[in-house]
C-alpha cells in the first residue's frame, strides 16, 4: 500500500508499505531518517520517539498506515536553518550525551516538555522523561540540560 504524509515539513509518498510495517521502519528504512532509533520495539525505551500531529509517540508502536494524512516531525527536523534547537544545544553544553543512542528520543521528549511547561522542576522533568531510557544511566546531566535549555529560552525571550 501507499502512505502519504508530511515528514519534517515535506510531503512524502511511500510505496509498497507492508500493512504491519511500523512507522519507525518506514522512517528509517524507506526515508533514510535514522535519527529515531530501533531498540525495544515495545514502547519501553522511547528511543524511537517522534512527533505525530504534534503528539510525542513511540514510532515503533504506530503502524505506517496509521500515519496516512498526518504530519510527522523527527529529530532531523528539529534544527532550523542549520541552527540547533536550544534543547540540542543544552544537551551538548551539559554533556548530557554518552553513547548517544537515546539522545534523539530524549531531546524530543525534553522539547515536548518545554513546549508545555517552560520552567519545569525536577519532578516534572522526571515524569516527562519517564518513557525514555538511557542505559549509560546519564540521567542527572540530562536533567541539568533540560533546566539549562529552559533558562536559555527564557533568557532569549527576555532580550
Amino acid at each position, binding site marked *: *500500500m501507499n502512505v502519504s504524509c508530511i515528514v519534517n515539513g515535506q510531503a512524502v509518498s511511500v510505496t509498497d508499505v507492508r*500493512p504491519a510495517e511500523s512507522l519507525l521502519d518506514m522512517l528509517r528504512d524507506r526515508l533514510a531518517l535514522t535519527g529515531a532509533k530501533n531498540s525495544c520495539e*515495545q*514502547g519501553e525505551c*522511547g528511543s524511537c520517539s517522534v512527533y505525530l500531529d504534534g503528539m510525542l509517540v513511540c514510532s*515503533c*508502536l504506530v503502524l505506517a*498506515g496509521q500515519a496516512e494524512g498526518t504530519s510527522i516531525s523527527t529529530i532531523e527536523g528539529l534544527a532550523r536553518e542549520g541552527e540547533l534547537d536550544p534543547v540540542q544545544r543544552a544537551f551538548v553544553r551539559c554533556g548530557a550525551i554518552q553513547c548517544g543512542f537515546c539522545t534523539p528520543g530524549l531531546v524530543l521528549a525534553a522539547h515536548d516538555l518545554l513546549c508545555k511547561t517552560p520552567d519545569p522542576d525536577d519532578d516534572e522533568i522526571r515524569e516527562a522523561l519517564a518513557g525514555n531510557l538511557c542505559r549509560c544511566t546519564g540521567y542527572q546531566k540530562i536533567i541539568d540540560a533540560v533546566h539549562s535549555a529552559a533558562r536559555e529560552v527564557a533568557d532569549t525571550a527576555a532580550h
Partner: protein
Amino acid sequence: MTAFLRPASWPQALQLRAEHPDALVVAGGTDVCVDINFGRLSPECLLDISAVPEIATISRSDGRLVIGAGVTYSHLVAEIEADLPALAAAARTVGSPQIRNRGTIGGNLGTSSPAGDCHPPLLASGAEIEIASASGTRMVAAAEFFLAPKRNVLQPGELVAAVHIPRAFGPQVFAKTGTRNAMVIAACSLALVLDPQARQVGTGIGSAGPVPLRAVAAQDYLVGALSADGQWDRPRSLPPELISGFADRVAAAAKPIDDVRGSAAYRVHALRVLAGRALTWAWDEFREMP
C-alpha cells in the same frame, strides 16, 4: 496479502467490521503493535480505527460522561480530572507520555488485560460499555464485560463505541503498586469510589484475578458500618477496626496468581495496604468537603 483498512467515519468502521469479522482492530496500537513487532500476531487483516473522529470525543449530560472509545489517556488526564478523579488518576499512571498520547480507553477494554489500568475505576463507578455493530448497539455493565484474561463479551462484528460513566459525587481514589512510578504494569491496583449522597461505595481491583474484580463484600461491609455509626451525616475519623475490616474484605476478594510482577501472597498483602490507604484518603477528603 494482508489488508489494511482505515475507515474515516464510525459507520464505515462498523461496516468494515461486519465485512471483516476476523480483522485485528488497532486503535492507538500500544498493545497490538508490541505483539506484531514480536511476531506474536501476524494478522491477515488490520482494521485501524485511529482516524475515526466520532469516537475521539468526551461529552457530558445528565450527570454522566460518554467517553468515546478512541479517547487517549492523555485526553482523559487533561479533561476529566474534576469529573472522574479515579479514572483520571489511573490514566495518568499508564506507561509514559508517549504511550498516553496513543493508548485509548477503548483499546484498554478491547485488550481486556487483567492489568488494564482503566478497568478498576470503571468497575468502581458502575460504568457501562457501549458496544456497537452494523446492526445496532447494546450496553454492558463494566463488571460483566470481562470474561477471562484478554477475553471479553465482544462478538464478531462488534466494536467498543464508548464508555458511559456517572460523574463523581464524592471522593474517588486510584492506587497501584509496581516497581516504578512510570512505565509500570500494575502488580495490583485498586479504585475506590464514595458516593455520600446515595450512601454507596464502589470498588475495583486490577491485576489480582483473571479479570478485573469488584470487592462486593467489602463495599457492603463499609456501607453498613458507616451507616450504623452515623458517619455519612457527621463524618468523623474512622476507627482502625473499620478500616482493617474493609481492607481485609478487599484482600479476600482478590484471586491472584504468582507471576513475573509479583506473588499471589504479595498481591493480597498489597491490596490490603492499598485498601486501608485508599479508604483513609477518600474519607479524609470527604470530611474536608464543604
